[in-house]
């Protein structure tokens, strides 16, 4: 508990530096390339294009869902996934990425995941905006349900930070763990209901297990906003499950941090 409090205080104390670092992190990622900022859009566009092609032309599935073209249904799951996937590997690598910093300049290690989470969030917000434009351009109705997007953004950020704190520290001491994260990346993508609806899967037990995955919850949430038109409070059980997983990561991250706080900079 004391450690958790300390972590929160550090974030408040270093808020300006964290924001500055997030900005720098973002600029660094895209600068230097000829298309620079274009890549922030182009890269996801290519990925979505490939999957769209595979499903509609190759597999010839991809029928409209709930009256929305499959393409729109697909991107409403893909856009949050880009953020989540960036945090999945990026969070695990965050402490290493900023080792040069925390080893030389006084900066609390516990604030590093927040830097990565914020910089990815900025890209995500831009992509979401673009997605809304695409919806409008394709004549799909935009509804009041979009008003709950900030709620999901907050959950994504919180989960990203908690995961980053936990996984970053484990990565710091175990290369195996990082390899595990990287190699499970594709599995996570296919199990999180980006390409198919979990609700149409046969077998209650299987559905239950798949829905324990917090990634599924976030992706479903985006679809609630764009496609299904459901408020988040209409699914309190799913939210509860998500929060339990979130608290588990917070607990683990904080517990480990209470052990390593004084030594982590020596290990990185």
């Amino acid at each position, binding site marked *: 508990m004391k450690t958790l409090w300390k972590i929160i205080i550090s974030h408040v104390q270093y808020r*300006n*530096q964290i924001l*500055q*670092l997030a900005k*720098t992190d973002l600029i*660094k990622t895209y*600068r*230097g390339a000829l298309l620079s900022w274009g890549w922030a859009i182009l890269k996801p566009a290519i990925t979505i294009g490939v999957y769209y092609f595979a499903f509609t032309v190759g597999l010839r599935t991809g029928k409209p869902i709930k009256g929305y073209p499959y393409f729109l249904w697909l991107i409403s799951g893909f856009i949050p996934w880009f953020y989540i996937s960036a945090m999945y590997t990026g969070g695990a690598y965050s402490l290493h990425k900023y080792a*040069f*910093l*925390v*080893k*030389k*300049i*006084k*900066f609390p290690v516990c604030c590093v995941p927040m830097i990565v989470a914020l910089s990815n969030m900025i890209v995500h917000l831009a992509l979401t905006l673009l997605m809304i434009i695409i919806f409008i351009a394709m004549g799909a109705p935009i509804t009041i349900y979009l008003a709950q997007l900030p709620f999901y953004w907050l959950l994504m950020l919180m989960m990203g930070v908690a995961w980053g704190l936990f996984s970053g*520290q*484990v990565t710091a*001491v*175990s*290369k*195996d*763990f990082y390899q595990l994260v990287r190699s499970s990346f594709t599995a996570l993508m296919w199990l999180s209901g980006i390409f198919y609806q979990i609700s149409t899967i046969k077998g209650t037990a299987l559905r239950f297990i798949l829905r324990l995955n917090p990634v599924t919850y976030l992706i479903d949430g985006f679809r609630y906003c764009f496609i299904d038109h459901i408020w988040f409070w209409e699914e309190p059980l799913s939210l509860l499950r998500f929060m339990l997983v979130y608290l588990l990561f917070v607990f683990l991250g904080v*517990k*480990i941090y209470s*052990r*390593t*706080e*004084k*030594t982590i*900079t*020596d*290990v990185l």
Partner: protein
Amino acid sequence: MTEEHEVVIQFRNVTKTFDLFKNDKQRLKSLLFRNTNARKKVAIDNLSFDIRQGEAVAILGKNGAGKSTMLKMISGVTFPTVGSVRVTGRVSALLEVSGGFDPELSGRENIYFRGELLGISRDELKEMEPDIVAFSELGSYIDMPIRTYSSGMKSKLGFSINANIRPDIIIVDEALSVGDKDFRAKCRRRITEILNSGVTFLFVTHSTAEAKNFCKRGLVIREGKLVFDGDIKDAAAFYEKMHV
């Protein structure tokens, strides 16, 4: 009696031990369980001292005596296992001056990057920027990414930043070996200037001659213990004798 200045660096019974694990598996285990089958290496052993504002102190010790660990604790990048370290004011550390840069950013951006991390406002940095750039002698390289710099250039920039951000405490770790002869001379002049402005100064070196040049007080560290604390002349003599 002379007026006593405020204590800006205080070490109280500071001990720092490093856990040496046999392998990553053991280290991983230590995250969740309090296992203690790691070997311990004591880097700093029950160290206590005070440094007051405006003092110029040399820290003498052989390689591996624990000097760097001590400086890292002062600059806040590592923490004591036992005991307490209290530091008041903005610390500007020249520990491996070339470190702490973001290699993808240009030299100029790194000035802001580092400055803001130290809690200096953007306006203040704008004011300092010309001095830092001029001092570093990097010319148009200042707008190139740091990854294209030679080690000499990095050190020059590092020194320029740390010497020009008006710190309260400045730590120099063998940094006078930075760059060529002319630049070294310039660094010396700058340090003397800083010293005259009443900044607290810590100087880590093997060279007792250099130490005597800048400092009035000397601490001698051996195997993590403070073995001498006093006038720089006596400290230098003690340190020289230790070698024989």
